[in-house]
């Protein structure tokens, strides 16, 4: 019996070893290095490592720079996530019909998935350019008060394809008979959507919500591509990832590491919170 158990444990370890190896090399080791680097301070050349302990954590995480980065990231999240979620649902519902030529619209709505951030940024700049743009809007990106709205718009447009594909897949997984039963039960389109469709795609929506939130917290590339100077004007679009990026100089590596750890913990807590609050409302089927 005892021997059997050992044999079973050995077999389990054997099967788990590839995952453990990947986790150790690509996640645990870099993360451990990150945490450790946060305990040291360097000189401008990147050497002369000086152990400063956890005080660097309290200094950086309680400092103005981190707070400002988090605030900007939060603002970006508020601007992008609800709009992205709602537009994704709206377009997917519109495109989830048995109509001639609907595949053309499905392809168009999906196209941003295959668009790189640089290209998306360039297209967006061309679209909203005050002089030559398709929409000759006031230059949102030049004003510190509206620059975040500008980058949020571009980011929402870029992630719309992913949101659309995810929601459409969810909608197409709903058994047609359930929708038909709802029709026979006398549910109007709106009631059917809220009482049948939405609960049945709730797992997909929870996944999409977490994806969009994490995406917003990690926003960097689209801001870098759109703003001049990057993160401007006046640092109004400097999200936390931007701040971390700016701390890449050898003498700031310690502070950057602390901010990275802070961002990780925050992302983890947000995802955990979302699961804890929303998981009860999600129906995972049979």
């Amino acid at each position: 019996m005892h021997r059997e158990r050992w044999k079973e444990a050995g077999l389990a370890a054997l099967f788990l070893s590839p995952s453990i190896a990947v986790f150790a090399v690509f996640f645990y080791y870099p993360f451990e290095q990150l945490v450790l680097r946060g305990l040291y301070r360097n000189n401008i050349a990147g050497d002369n490592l000086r152990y400063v302990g956890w005080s660097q954590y309290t200094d950086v995480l309680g400092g103005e720079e981190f707070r400002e980065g988090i605030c900007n990231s939060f603002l970006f999240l508020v601007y992008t996530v609800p709009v992205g979620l709602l537009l994704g649902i709206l377009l997917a519902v519109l495109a989830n019909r048995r109509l001639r030529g609907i595949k053309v619209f499905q392809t168009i709505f999906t196209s941003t998935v295959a668009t790189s951030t640089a290209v998306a940024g360039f297209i967006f700049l061309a679209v909203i350019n005050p002089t030559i743009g398709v929409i000759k809007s006031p230059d949102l990106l030049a004003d510190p008060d509206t620059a975040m709205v500008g980058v949020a718009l571009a980011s929402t447009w870029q992630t719309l394809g992913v949101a659309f594909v995810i929601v459409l897949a969810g909608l197409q997984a709903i058994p047609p008979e359930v929708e038909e039963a709802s029709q026979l039960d006398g549910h109007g389109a709106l009631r059917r959507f809220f009482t049948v469709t939405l609960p049945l795609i709730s797992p997909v929506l929870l996944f999409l919500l977490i994806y969009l939130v994490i995406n917003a917290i990690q926003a960097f590339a689209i801001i870098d591509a759109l703003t001049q100077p990057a993160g401007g004007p006046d640092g109004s679009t400097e999200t936390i990832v931007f701040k971390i990026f700016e701390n890449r100089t050898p003498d700031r590596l310690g502070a950057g590491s602390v901010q990275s750890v802070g961002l990780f913990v925050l992302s983890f807590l947000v995802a955990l919170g979302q699961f804890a609050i929303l998981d009860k409302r999600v129906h995972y089927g049979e």
Partner: protein
Amino acid sequence: MASVTFDGVTKRFGSVTAVEAFDLTVTDGEFMVLLGPSGCGKSTLLRMVAGLEEISGGGLSIGDDVVNDVAPARRDVSMVFQSYALYPHMTVTKNIESPLVSKPSRIDSSGDGTDEVRKLTKIERQERIDEAARMLGLGPLLERKPAELSGGQRQRVALARAAVSRPAVFLMDEPLSNLDAKLRSQTRAELVELHDRLGTTVIYVTHDQVEAMTMATRIAIMCDGRLQQVGTPREVYERPANVFVAHFVGTPPMNTAPVEVRDGHASLGRSQVKVDAPDGPAVLGVRPEHLAVDAEGPIEATVRHVEWLGHEALVTCDLEGGDGATVDGGEPLRTIGAEAEAAAADGAEQMAATSADRWIVRINAATDPVPDVGRALRLRPTGGNVHCFDRDTEDRLDAS
């Protein structure tokens, strides 16, 4: 309660015609079974009654109203789907309550003979749920979700949801096909009881002839989108309208073979069988239970295979002098092979399939000796139970 009238109902999907000029009247309170192999158009027909498929041509009436363009919820019908189509995120109570919330329901007549139709109050809804739950034995399950129920329990919830609004017509699309054999047999009896109690018109779709024979007031048999025969289970069994019906109804199916009729006798290989049919090419049909082993019988055969089932034995015989489906130089039968394939594909409970030169004899194993494989014997149709069909149209010859 209401009748349902199909008046030349046609359904086309692009260039494919799924149902063609279908005429049928389902009378008030009747249990009508639409029976046919997969792809014959029976489910499409049911979905047209429900309003889930548009009608391409003809007219469909429920009661006195033509409902071709009436929305599903306004047709006063309810449907039990093959997959039950319960709302997986709702409890049993909420599932049953669903049709009562949004659409008007029939209220018991207050003595003047007319039913009142209106939306129910919350208390009335609860009474209806309790009544349906009591009727179908769902009391202890009301707070569970469908995932926590067995197949049989889900099926009963679907029935409760269909019955709770007291519709004029119940539509059922193969509701027993996901149940095991024992539960299916039990549920068949329960469905008949439910129909007797409620008296609602039922249109029930199935490919299973046992369900059709045991539950139906009348059976409408379909093939390739066309109605083949309508009649009571006894009528379609005893007087099939054509070769397709003769093959489709009955397990094992009716034995058939192309024959030439002359002077009241059909020549079957070297055998002569007395028939009541006009002279000319025909298809002879005899059910396995209407063949007896008789030393003086007119049909010569050799035993090829015996399936012993305890109370009976199915004896497969090769007819002497037969040469496949072209006996007497006639054309091969159109439906025999296709039907046998369809029956096999449908998973029908057929243990053996017949062909023009291979017939099956059903022998009562308790009273008659079961012949050994390889034995030559003679067969006789009993009690004049011989059917004759036109060779070209495959329709029943009236004289038979």
